[in-house]
C-alpha cells in the first residue's frame, strides 16, 4: 500500500542552471534571476537625473541580452527595490547599456548614491518597441517632454546609425526650465553630424536662456509636417502627449503612425502583477509602446 506523493522538484530542472532568456516569453525560466551588472560609468545630467552605464558581467548573459528601441528593463537594486527603466542607448551597443534615471523614490534615490563600480541587476528586456523598420523611408518626428527624452534616445540612435534609410528627422524637446534639459552635450553632434533638426523650448526661462519659451506645441509652428509620410514618437507626461497627439491628429497624421510610450506602476514586467494594467491591457507586455489609436481605445489611458 503506498500513498506517498513523490516530490516534483523544479530545482532539478535544466532551466535552473541556464540564464533566463527574456525574449522567449513562453518557456519556463527563472523569471526572477537577474543579470548582474557593474556600473562602469555615471554621468551627472541634471540635479535630478543621472546616466548610468551598465555592463552585464557574465559574457553569456551579455550575449543573450539584446533589445529594441522602446523596450525597458527591470533594474534591481538588491535590498531596496526593482524599477522599470527604458533603455536609453543604442541597440547596437553590445558592450554596455545606458539608463537615464531620475531620482524619485526609494530605489532611484539609493541608485543615485551608488558609486562607480557598484553592482546592480537587470532583467529583461520587456515590452513592445517602436516599429523602426516600418518607419524607414519616411520622415521621423520625435517629440519629448522632460524625462521623455531618455526613451527616445534608443530610436534616435537607431535612425542615426542608419541615417540614409530615413528622410527628415526632427526632435522637438521641451522642459519646464532650462536646467532640466537632458543630454545637452549631444545636441550639437545630433544637429551637425547626424543632420537631425533639433528644436527646444522651455516653459520658464532663466536669465541665461536664449532659446524659445512656451509650450511644446508651439514648436509645431516652426516645422513642416507632411502627414502622408511622417511617423511620430511622443514621450512625456500624459498631459503633454494628449495635447501633442490631438494636434498631430488635426494635421491629418494617421493614428497608427503616432506612437507613445505609457508609464504605469510596475512590479514584475511580465504581465503578472497587474499594477500597470489599463483596462484589459498590460503596459508591460502589450506596451509600453502603443500607437495612438490603441491608447484612445483604452478608457483609462489618458
Amino acid at each position, binding site marked *: 500500500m503506498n500513498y506517498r506523493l513523490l516530490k516534483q522538484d523544479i530545482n532539478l530542472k535544466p532551466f535552473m542552471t541556464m540564464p533566463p532568456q527574456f525574449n522567449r516569453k513562453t518557456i519556463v525560466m527563472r523569471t526572477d534571476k537577474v543579470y548582474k551588472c557593474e556600473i562602469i560609468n555615471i554621468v551627472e545630467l541634471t540635479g535630478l537625473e543621472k546616466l548610468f552605464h551598465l555592463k552585464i558581467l557574465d559574457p553569456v548573459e551579455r550575449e543573450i541580452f539584446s533589445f529594441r528601441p522602446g523596450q525597458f528593463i527591470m533594474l534591481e537594486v538588491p535590498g*531596496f527595490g526593482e524599477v522599470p527603466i527604458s533603455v536609453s542607448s543604442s541597440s547596437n551597443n553590445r558592450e554596455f547599456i545606458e539608463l537615464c534615471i531620475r531620482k524619485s*523614490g526609494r530605489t532611484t534615490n*539609493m541608485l543615485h548614491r551608488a558609486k*562607480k*563600480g557598484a553592482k*546592480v541587476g537587470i532583467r529583461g528586456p520587456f515590452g513592445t518597441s517602436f516599429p523602426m523598420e516600418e518607419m524607414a523611408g519616411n520622415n521621423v518626428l520625435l517629440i519629448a517632454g522632460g524625462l521623455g527624452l531618455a526613451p527616445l534616445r534608443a530610436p534616435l540612435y537607431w535612425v542615426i546609425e542608419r541615417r540614409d534609410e530615413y528622410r527628415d528627422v526632427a526632435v522637438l524637446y521641451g522642459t519646464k526650465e532650462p536646467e532640466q534639459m537632458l543630454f545637452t552635450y549631444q545636441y550639437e553632434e545630433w544637429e551637425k553630424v547626424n543632420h537631425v533638426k533639433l528644436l527646444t523650448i522651455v516653459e520658464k526661462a532663466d536669465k541665461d536662456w536664449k532659446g524659445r519659451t512656451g509650450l511644446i506645441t508651439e514648436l509645431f509652428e516652426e516645422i513642416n509636417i507632411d502627414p502622408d509620410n511622417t511617423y511620430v514618437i511622443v514621450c512625456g507626461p500624459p498631459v503633454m502627449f494628449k495635447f501633442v497627439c490631438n494636434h498631430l491628429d488635426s494635421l491629418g497624421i494617421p493614428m497608427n503612425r503616432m506612437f507613445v510610450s505609457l508609464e504605469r506602476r510596475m512590479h514584475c514586467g511580465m504581465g503578472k502583477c497587474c499594477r500597470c494594467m489599463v483596462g484589459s491591457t498590460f503596459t508591460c507586455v502589450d506596451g509600453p509602446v502603443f500607437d495612438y489609436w490603441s491608447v484612445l481605445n483604452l478608457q483609462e489611458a489618458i
Partner: protein
Amino acid sequence: MKYLGIETEKVRIGVFDFTGCEGCELQLANKEGTLVSFLDLLEVVNFREISSERGDNYDVALVEGAISRDNEIERLKQIREKAKVLVAIGSCACFGGVNYLKNRFSMENVVNEVYGEHKVETRRVQSIGEVVKVDLEIPGCPVSKEEVERIVVDLVTGADIKFPKYPVCIECRQKLNTCVFDLGKICLGPITRAGCGAVCPSSKVGCLGCRGPAEDANYDSFRQIALDHGFTAPRIEEKLKFFNALGAALQK
C-alpha cells in the same frame, strides 16, 4: 556593510520618554532573536531605561510619550535642538494616545479627583508634534518591533522610509482570521493603517486604531457599517477616540 560603494554607519540614538507607559521603549529590547544584530546597528548614547550612559551627541532622538507638564515642554525643546532627526515613537507621542482621554475633563477636576486637596501641576495632553517639529512618526500602542527594525535598517542604509498605506484588514485576511464583525464585535481595521500584523483581530478582538488612519480611509462608510451591525453611536465614538489616532474621523 559596504554596498553600492556606500559605507553604512551606526546611528547614534538617544531614547527619551515623556508621559507614557514606556512600553514602546521596552519593545526596543524585545524580539530577542535579533536583538544583538539590532543593537549592533546603533550607538546608544542616551537611553535612561536600560543604560547609565548619558550623552548629548545623538543624531536621532526617539521620543516616547505625550506632553502633559510644563517642564516636559522645556526638555522636549532641548532634545529637538540637539537631534538631527526627531522620531515620535508610539501612539502617545504621535497622537497623544490614551492620555488624551484626560482632555475630556478640566484639569482642576482631574487633579481633584486623583490628588484631592493636594495640588499637582498638569496640563492638557499634547502629542509631540503639537509642541515641536517631528521628522518621523512610528505609530502603534506599542510600536511593532519588526517595524522599528525595518526603519532602523533604513536609517542605517540611508533609504527612504515607507509605511503601508492600506488598512489592517488586508493583513488580517492574509492571516485567514475570521472577521471580528462576524463574531459580533466592532473593529476599526478597515480605517486603520496596517503594519502591526493585525495583532488585535488575530486574537479575535477588534482593532482600536492605534496606528492612525489608513490613507483615504472611508470614515462615512465605516460608521454606517458599524451602525448597521447594531453598535450604538457612543460605543463607536468611544472606540474611535480611544487613542486619539483617527484624527479625521473624530472631527465629526
